[in-house]
């Protein structure tokens, strides 16, 4: 009886202990908090710096802007393995793209991710104070402007929320801003960056004052604010540390981050990557995509043969133009010279985008996705040509325009030009195409100067200036965002 009693008491005790301790809802709140939550961050300088790296990270996924921007232009064809290989690329090549296009979707998603990550910092910009915070904010705002400008180029005006992250539901309430509002934010961000940054960054790869000035100038040029563009470009040219480098090595590994580099997206082959998350790669995915199919031979590595230059652009170079064979690889000539072998892909032209071909290196797998070639986003030659264009088209100073233009021509082994006025404009346009072929600028240059329809087969004026907003985005917004005209 006594035993029984004590046992019974034990049970009762256990019961009540469980009720009191275990059963209280506290039990559910005691789960281990080992992770930092998004809302309790930004407590030190290091936190801001770490979040800034997160914003920079998104730059690497802009490889698709470059690749697809080039395919959209008259410089290259889609290529790949077959007619169905990356359908989104194939459709844009022939200007038959629709609002359903995974690759356009990537551009939308990834650049907005950059904006969201930048706004995450800006949302908490007042939380913790430390010396040099304005520099981190300046870099953040430059990056926000960079992604915003990309989206503006591709899709036109986008919704804006200021210094705050978008939250679930905003897609149904915040409308697309006007073009002026979007440019105003870009200009404000870059102006802030210019006044808080130096020409040399604390680490290679970080934003400089020169980068902010050049991007601001470009934004002005796109708006045809030629005076303001000329002013800011002149400042880069006169005050900045930049100069043209040796074109022979400009796109080689040794040419990375050199004196011509104004802003450069950094890549490395040190970390593996897979197809399930291309934006996660630390390498330049575009490089493997435009590599020579099943290539064996010296210097280069193989790839997927997308983005193949046309014979037309190859022939647009004069014979003695130093840049021709350094920009575009004539694979037959190369094969017979070196004994290299390769396979022909879809829409094979015989030419490859040599600037961004994969070079032999020891990048880790999947090697096609981790090529380390940095993308020269803004280089000094581009700045000189934009400055020349602003000076010429704004009727400001053709002489200076020629000077800048001739610097670029001289390096290419071409004679200086003496033209002015509209003739000079045309020469600047041509020079811009040849100097920057394969770098993703051509399509947008044609659009902003109204020359797209005459150069791009299939281009419909009044429609193809902008790409369609992804259909699912239109649907998410439930009518809040209007589709671009013609789609």
């Amino acid at each position, binding site marked *: *009886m006594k035993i*029984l009693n004590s*046992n019974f008491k034990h*049970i009762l005790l256990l*019961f009540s202990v*469980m*009720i009191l301790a275990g059963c209280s*809802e506290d*039990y559910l709140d005691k*789960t281990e908090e080992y*992770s*930092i*939550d*998004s809302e309790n961050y930004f407590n030190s300088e290091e936190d801001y*710096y*770490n*979040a800034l*790296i*997160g914003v*920079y*990270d998104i730059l*690497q996924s802009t490889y698709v802007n470059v690749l697809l921007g080039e395919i959209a232009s008259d410089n290259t064809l889609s290529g*790949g393995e077959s*007619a*169905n290989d990356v*359908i989104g690329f194939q459709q844009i090549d022939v200007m038959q793209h629709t609002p359903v296009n*995974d690759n356009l979707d990537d551009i*939308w*998603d990834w650049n*907005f*991710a*950059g904006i*969201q990550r930048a706004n995450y910092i800006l949302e908490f910009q007042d939380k913790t104070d430390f010396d040099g915070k304005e520099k981190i904010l300046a870099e953040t705002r430059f990056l926000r402007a960079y992604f915003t400008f990309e989206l503006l180029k591709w899709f036109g005006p986008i919704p804006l929320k200021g210094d705050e992250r*978008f939250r*679930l539901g905003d897609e149904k309430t915040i409308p697309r801003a006007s073009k002026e509002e979007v440019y105003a934010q870009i200009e404000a961000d870059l102006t802030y960056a210019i006044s808080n940054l130096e020409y040399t960054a604390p680490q*290679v*790869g970080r934003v400089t004052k020169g980068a902010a000035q050049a991007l601001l100038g470009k934004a002005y040029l796109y708006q045809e604010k030629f005076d303001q563009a000329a002013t800011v470009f002149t400042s880069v040219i006169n005050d900045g540390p930049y100069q043209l480098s040796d074109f022979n090595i400009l796109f080689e590994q040794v040419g990375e981050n050199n004196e011509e580099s104004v802003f450069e997206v*950094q*890549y490395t082959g*040190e*970390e*593996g990557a897979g197809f399930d998350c291309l*934006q*996660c790669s630390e390498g330049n995915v575009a490089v493997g995509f435009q590599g020579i199919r*099943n*290539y*064996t031979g010296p210097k280069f590595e*193989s*790839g997927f043969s997308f983005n193949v230059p046309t014979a037309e652009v190859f022939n647009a170079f004069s014979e003695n133009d130093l840049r021709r064979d350094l920009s575009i690889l004539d694979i037959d000539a190369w094969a017979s010279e070196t004994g290299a*072998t390769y*396979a022909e892909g*879809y829409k094979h032209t015989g030419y490859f985008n040599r600037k961004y071909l994969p070079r032999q290196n020891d990048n*880790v*797998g*999947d*090697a*096609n996705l981790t090529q380390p070639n940095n993308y020269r986003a803004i280089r000094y030659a581009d700045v000189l040509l934009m400055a020349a264009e602003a000076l010429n088209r704004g009727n400001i100073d053709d002489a200076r325009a020629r000077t800048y233009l001739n610097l670029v021509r001289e390096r290419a082994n071409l004679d200086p030009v003496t033209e002015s006025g509209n003739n000079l404009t045309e020469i600047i346009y041509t020079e811009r195409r040849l100097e920057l072929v394969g770098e993703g600028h051509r399509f947008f240059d044609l659009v902003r100067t109204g020359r797209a329809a005459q150069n791009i087969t299939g281009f419909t004026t009044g429609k193809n200036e902008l790409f369609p907003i*992804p259909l699912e985005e239109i*649907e*998410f917004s439930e009518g809040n965002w209007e589709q671009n005209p013609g789609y």
Partner: protein
Amino acid sequence: MMRFTSFLIVLLGGVFSMCSQSFSVEGNVVDENNIPLLGVNVLVKGEARGTTTDFDGNFLIDNVSANDILQFTYVGFLTKEVQVGNQRTISVQLETDSQSLDEVIVIGYGTQQRKDITGAVSIVSENTIKELNPIKLEQALQGTAAGVNVTPSSGAPGAGININIRGIASNSVNGPLVLIDGYQGDLGTLNPNDVASISILKDAQAAIYGIAGANGVVLITTKTGKKNTSPQIQYDSYVGLQEASRMIPLLNATEYALLLNESYANNGQDIPFPDVSELGKGSDFQDEVLETAPIYNHNLTLSGGSEKVTYSIGGSHLYQEGIIGSEKSDFTRSTARFNLGIAISDQFDLSANSIYTNIDRRSINENGLGSVLFNALNIAPTFALDQEDLDGKLGNEIINPLSQIENTFNEYNLNKFNGSFSLDFKPIEALKFTSRLGYSVSNSKGKDFAPIISYGPGKVFNNDRSRVNQNRINDNSYTYDLFGTYDNTFNETHHVTATAGMTVIKNWGDGLYATGYDVPNNSWDFADISLTTGTNDGINNSAYKYDTRKLSFFGRLQYDYKGKYLVSGMLRRDASTRFSPDNRVGYFPSATAGWILSEEDFLSDSQLISFLKLRASFGILGNDETGGSQFYRSLLNGEATYVFDGALVNGKALGSLANPAAGWEEAEKTNIGVDIRLLKNKLDITADVFREDRKDLLIAGIPVSGIFGGGAPGSGAPTINAGTTRNEGLEFSVKYSDNKGDDFNYSIAYNATILNNEVTEVNGTEFLSGGQFAVGQPQPSRFQAGFPIGYFYGYKTDGVFQTPAEVAAHPSQLALGANASPGDIRYVDINNDGVINTDDRTNIGDPIPTATMGLNINLNYKNFDFTAYIYASLGNDMVRNYERNQPNVNKSAYYLERWTGPGTSNEVPRVTTGATANTAFSDFYVEDASYARIQNVQLGYSLPGTFLSKTGLDRLRIYASVNNLYTFTKYKGFDPSASTGEAIGGGIDYGFYPVPRIFLAGVNLNF
């Protein structure tokens, strides 16, 4: 006091019996057919002594007196008691317990007699498991339980097996809750031989499990010893050989070369094989890759019990080699187990059980682009067996499958302890408290080694730096239950069972992953991080940790009036840490009712109807499983890696987007059923109609606008309650069993499930997509309102264009990639807008079977026994996705029947290296994968008792069986039964590792 009383009784009884005259009694026990019964327990009632019958059914028991009562008990037979009286010889005939209605069934926090069950419950017995002889326990559920669909994710040894109960309701996790002796467990690691029974709760009765019960509940009871039985040793063993059940007919080298020539010529290119005369049949890579592989299994169990203690102790060892890659895809499982029951006193019962499992597994690349079988099907037969694709003829993914196997190195090891301790306390007869702690601790380690290897230029499997990845994963859980049950009958008419209690579940664990570079000697022998020397800038390690908890209270009231009218109601309150504190708590009510008509006067005399019950249930259950551990907050676990100063730098970024409003899925289940037994219980029929509406589906990764940044590396879309699905259907099972004379008895059982599955609502997006087809094509599977979950979305075809006139008369197909020519597939202009484009895609099939059925046959003749299990699945479609769309790969033999000119074929298009629209995802690639499979055929022979008496064995049975004997199907691929189990993206075949055909010979020994 009570103890004292019983002690006194025992003492007095002993004295009393000593005083009276005692003698020996011998006798014989037979069944209804006068066949001697072996191992019948013969007990002196009220005393802890007795004996068992031998193989001739004879027994001898000493020291009994005229007042003693002998009790004869035997599993499957009704217990019989005989007063000794003057008899010195007692012959007893036991009656079969055909009324297995008295069978006690585990229903969750309690048991119930089968006749009283008011929910839809399927039972798989120990016998069925024995007959099916499954390698993994899940296989015992296929075709044996109505409403349960079992699909292997692969035929590789040890591969996971998916179970769906009454269809797929969720877009993500659809597996049932598995409880082993009451605690949360895992079917996949159990030894089938350790299991005594499986109950499957399919309807609202599972609401006693509240938030965890929506996908159905599988209750496993492991083997225990029986009281008052002498020690019994059981040894079971089999050995066998496995082989592929099917080869896909492919082109041989000459056929391949001719086809390639034709496809090049059709595009105006030079033909690649100007001379085919020397090619012959070439290499058969498929034949080389698929091998015959051994399997063997040993099981040893010792069980028994005394008056106070029962025990069951067992061990097993299974080894299975793969039919691809032999020991490179093998599986070893060793288990050890004990189960102890101790009657501490009249009030207290203690039980403890524990299972230790050790699993070793290796695997090869399977079911994907570039997997071993995919390569075996696509590599050119003109290649020598040891030849690599050095010219890049076959694209970037296709490599020599034999070198691929050779360069595959990995291993996985799991060590797991699980079990429970349970204390029952019965203060009075009608009241019982149970306090039970179930636990599971598992540790696994994995390693894979990527050697430096080149399979030819540009191949995606090339690796120029050797690397070894290692991981350690630790998963723990406990389930603590405390509940009381009050069971009483008032006035012999009102039977009440009330149950109330609580459950606490905690799952926690962590994982650590690391990579070492530059493995010495580029060799598996040295593949360990401790030996690697290389460094790089990347982050070479990662880790995670989780902790989720649930706290639940529940109550259930069961009432019946005179055993005729049965009702029950239950309510469970759950709180789960997967949700924010504001959305954490939910209530799940359900009710069931039954009416046993055969107990009514108007049926009680029926000759035809032995038993008839109508039952119905309705209730609401929940589901909080979608894979992720927390949905309501964002962690800083996104990827933030960039390059400064030429070196990788790592920062912080947001992980998956948060949805503070996330709550659980709600399943509304309705079931109406009938149980009938006819012809003196010979015919047993159960039928159910059911419906489940699953609301507020927790859709992980539901697309949301890109403006939230979910596309960033390491981020992802949030989990949102955003959909509704409906599953409704019919289940039917019938069993007929009978004896013919003394020597022959048989049973035939058939069950069928008809299921209709539909997504009824998706919020916030028109559809979700998943799966992969070919390379770079849109995802083929969709989750969309008005369609089955995971249906295939593509073009409908209408034969092949025969003439240019037909092409001209048809809308342009240019938008699909190229203008059509004669010999190309003709697509249907679904929306009749005069052009074929992406808007013409439609529903072209779905992977969910419309009907599944099982047929089980059992025959016993004298000492022979025969069983056959047949399973059929109808209406499931499969995407043929193992054909690489590349000019130089090999093709299936059906291409011999291709279009080569008007009138030649209206099914298989022409071949060409030029651009065509034939590769777009269409019903040309979707096949009806309905099948019927002879799952298991077994013939056994038990040696007669006369023979055994000389050996000291109680039973010796030998058998031979074939698993997966034959599959009837029109599907062209390896295996119509396989699926990845994904709700969206299942049923896509990259060349599934086929389920092998296994020839077994085995032995069952008892002594």
